[in-house]
């Protein structure tokens, strides 16, 4: 069995299984967790509206903090958009999703996908360096955050190298890229990268909770 056979075979199966087990475990565990007891009369029953409002309002920087976090906020948006354009609109990636979901969608020409990928990579590297040199950012960063950054940065680098046929032979580079992404699959449920599922759920839950307390957040 070659490295590529291993990457697209057993490694893919196991990494997907681990990611699904981990994410289902965390989501069900959080939702079945105990809600706090009301210590006063609920101010509102419109929990759904409160939850949905929080999802929208918290997607933009809070007005009071806007000046301080604008840079972090918008560079965060740009790299996420670049990353998801690369993941979702690159034709070989679409073939991968098609093999699992049973359907695909139109993609972008390969040479155009390089741009969002390169932009995402550049911003992510820049944010990582900033995180390392800014005293406040350094204080709130833990080793597992750096590990998450390394895994994503290396997934982008190996992907760009494989598509541009740079470095080792194509099949080796492709296998390294796929193994890198599989490491990401395994790491997602057990790290802050689980925000890919929780960003909506946690905002909704906080919004619903605040609504019950009468806070318009």
């Amino acid at each position, binding site marked *: 069995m*070659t490295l590529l056979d291993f990457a697209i075979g057993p490694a893919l*199966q196991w990494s*997907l299984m681990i990611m*699904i087990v981990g994410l*289902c475990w965390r989501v069900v565990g959080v939702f079945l*967790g105990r809600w706090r007891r009301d210590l006063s009369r609920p101010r509102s029953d419109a929990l759904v509206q409160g939850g949905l409002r929080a999802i929208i309002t918290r997607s933009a920087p809070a007005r009071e903090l806007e000046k301080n976090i604008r840079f972090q906020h918008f560079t965060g948006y740009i790299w996420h958009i670049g990353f998801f354009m690369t993941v979702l609109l690159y034709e*070989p990636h679409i073939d991968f999703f098609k093999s*699992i979901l049973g359907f695909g969608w139109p993609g972008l020409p*390969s040479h155009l996908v390089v741009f969002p990928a390169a932009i995402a990579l550049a911003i992510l590297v820049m944010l990582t360096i900033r995180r390392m040199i800014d005293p406040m950012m350094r204080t709130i960063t833990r080793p597992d955050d750096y590990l998450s950054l390394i895994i994503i940065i290396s997934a982008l680098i190996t992907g760009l190298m494989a598509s541009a046929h740079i470095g080792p032979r194509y099949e080796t580079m492709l296998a390294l890229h796929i193994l890198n992404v599989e490491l990401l699959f395994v790491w997602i449920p057990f790290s802050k990268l689980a925000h890919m599922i929780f960003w909506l759920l946690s905002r909704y839950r906080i919004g619903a909770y605040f609504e019950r307390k009468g806070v318009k957040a």
Partner: protein
Amino acid sequence: MRKNQNLGEYLQMQGVSRRGFLKFCSATASMMALPPSAVAQVAEALATARRPSVIWLSFQECTGCTESLTRSHAPTVESLIFDAISLDYHHTLQAAAGHGAEAAREAAMEENKGEYILVVDGSIPNGNNGYSTIAGISNLDMLKEAAEHCFAIVAVGTCAAFGGLPNAQPNPTGAVSVSEIIKDKPIINVSGCPPIPVVITGVLSHFLTFGTIPELDALGRPAAFFGQNIHDRCYRRPFYERGQFAETFDDEGARKGWCLYKLGCKGPITYNACATLKWNQGTGFPIQAGHGCIGCSEPQFWDKGGFYEPISAGQWGTRDALLGAAAAGAALGVGSALAARRRQKKAQETTL
């Protein structure tokens, strides 16, 4: 060709002009990735070369490799070069059969001890030797005996080089490649199902010119022919870059000659010279005929998933397995939520 006649004299006798011969030498030097200055050396060496003795053993194979070589370019300089070697044993091509033929093989081996080139096509059954025998001799025994005093071995075709189709799961005959049996001789793998005839003659030309084996890649294949993948040299590559793919074999994209990646083309992970040397006197190759590369020059190509599955389509298992994983995860979640509730209740009671 007489035994004491050299190749130059033989080709002249066959009507090959000096210009035609030099043209062939230039092409051979170019194929072998040699500098232009080496053409004269190739010409000199080939013209004065004495024909080497070649013993060709065919084991578990479909004869496609021999067909490829004998039915392709004839009568070209390449085929004359092939004629010019002393093919002392080839049980598919030779008229003799049975014990007489085997006696001829043994005599050729004895006469050219340590100097003959052993060409093998087909894999070797290593489970039950009775699966394939020639004149009552098992393939395994015949290979070991013939390899003992050879100069080098050329494993022609993917079966001899990597086990090939007989080696595909569940491999009932225990088929293995030449290199899994013979460990103490130089082996050149000329893989492909079948291999390109010019590659075989190129390897033999290298022998005749330099008396050494050519530079090989990590899989023991001549680097000059197997150094680049099909995708990098494919004329449809620009369509891949532009994201223009045929989705089916009869759609607009297929008619316009767009990239066959989505139809399972294995060009990006297959190393061979099909896209440059081509087949049928340089007419075309499978991708040019509208079918994706099936990766036939790579090990275990038969067991690498479907021929029509794109490379990036992972073998992710079954939907049931993923649903099972989701159910297991949910059960874990329920368990951990219940445990957390119990802990919280206990903490609350302690506080009160």
